[in-house]
């Protein structure tokens, strides 16, 4: 199956699934019992883990063989961007600084 076709199936399946999550309590309008602490903590970990699992390899690995490249332009630019994100909490600033950094680093480190 082509990526395009798979993507459409994801659009529909993830779309319907996401709506189901949203509608879960709102449509039933039950007053939900408090979630047990275990579930609450588990839910809290999900965004941090999922985003880190994507950002980590994206910044630390590069090239065709997925070789570990610790001091690559990607890693350094990503590190700078992380500091900006931490300090300024602005998505716009993070992207701007990160893109400028990677273009600058790739230009200076590969000439």
């Amino acid at each position, binding site marked *: 199956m082509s990526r*395009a076709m798979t993507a459409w199936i994801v659009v529909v*399946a993830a779309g319907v699934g996401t709506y189901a999550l949203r509608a879960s309590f709102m449509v039933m309008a039950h*007053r939900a019992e408090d979630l047990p602490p275990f579930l609450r903590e588990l839910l809290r970990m999900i965004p941090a883990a999922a985003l*880190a699992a994507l950002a980590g390899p994206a910044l630390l690995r590069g090239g065709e063989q997925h070789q570990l490249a610790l001091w690559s332009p990607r890693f350094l630019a*990503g590190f700078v961007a992380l500091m900006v*994100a931490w300090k300024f909490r602005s998505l716009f600033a993070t992207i701007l600084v*990160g893109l400028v950094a990677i273009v600058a680093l790739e230009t200076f480190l590969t000439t």
Partner: protein
Amino acid sequence: MTAFGQGARDLSPTLLGVVPFGVVAGLAAVEADLSVSHAIGFSVAMFAGAAQLVAIELLASDSQLVVIVTTALVVNLRLVMYSASIAPYLVNHRRRDRAVAAYFLVDQAYALSLIRYQRVDGEDLRIWYFLGCGVTLWLAWQAATVVGALAGNLVPDEVPLEFAVPLTFLAVLVPTVVDRPTLVAALVAAGVATSTSRLPANLGMPIGTSSGILVGTALAMHRRSR
């Protein structure tokens, strides 16, 4: 001003952060060799930034369909919490209205509405405030997506625009790391995912995510019991 208008007004300041995110969502789709229609499809069907980017990243690395959909829904699980906590405030509205409103349940609309409902009591038009937030955000999101998708096609390949996607992950990641368990969850997830990134079908990502969730939850529960 109507409740809807007040919702729209209160939401507007957050658009500064939302619009770049939407642009990245559109951009990511075309950078992953998907069409502008795909980009719009994702933003209309899912209307959830982080999950959209996760799904697109997994598609770009040719993960299995089941893994992609499951991971996207896992990322969106917090919507169930939002749904549960906002539902009691909307009991007086008809089910069909609540069903429509549910589509617009996003972080900002949820947060603002909750603040409002706790401050302003017994308002009959609660659902309209919520919709004011949600619809405004939806319009901005769709417009931003289209801009991002078109920009992705126009900008030359030398500019590494797809780098904006991991940058967005970082920017959204930072506010979610608030204590040691969440920090550990993130570090474990990143470490495991990076070490296993050569596995086929990008299995490293869900494996890393699950590892991070498990270790983080274990740490958080351990701290509670002390």
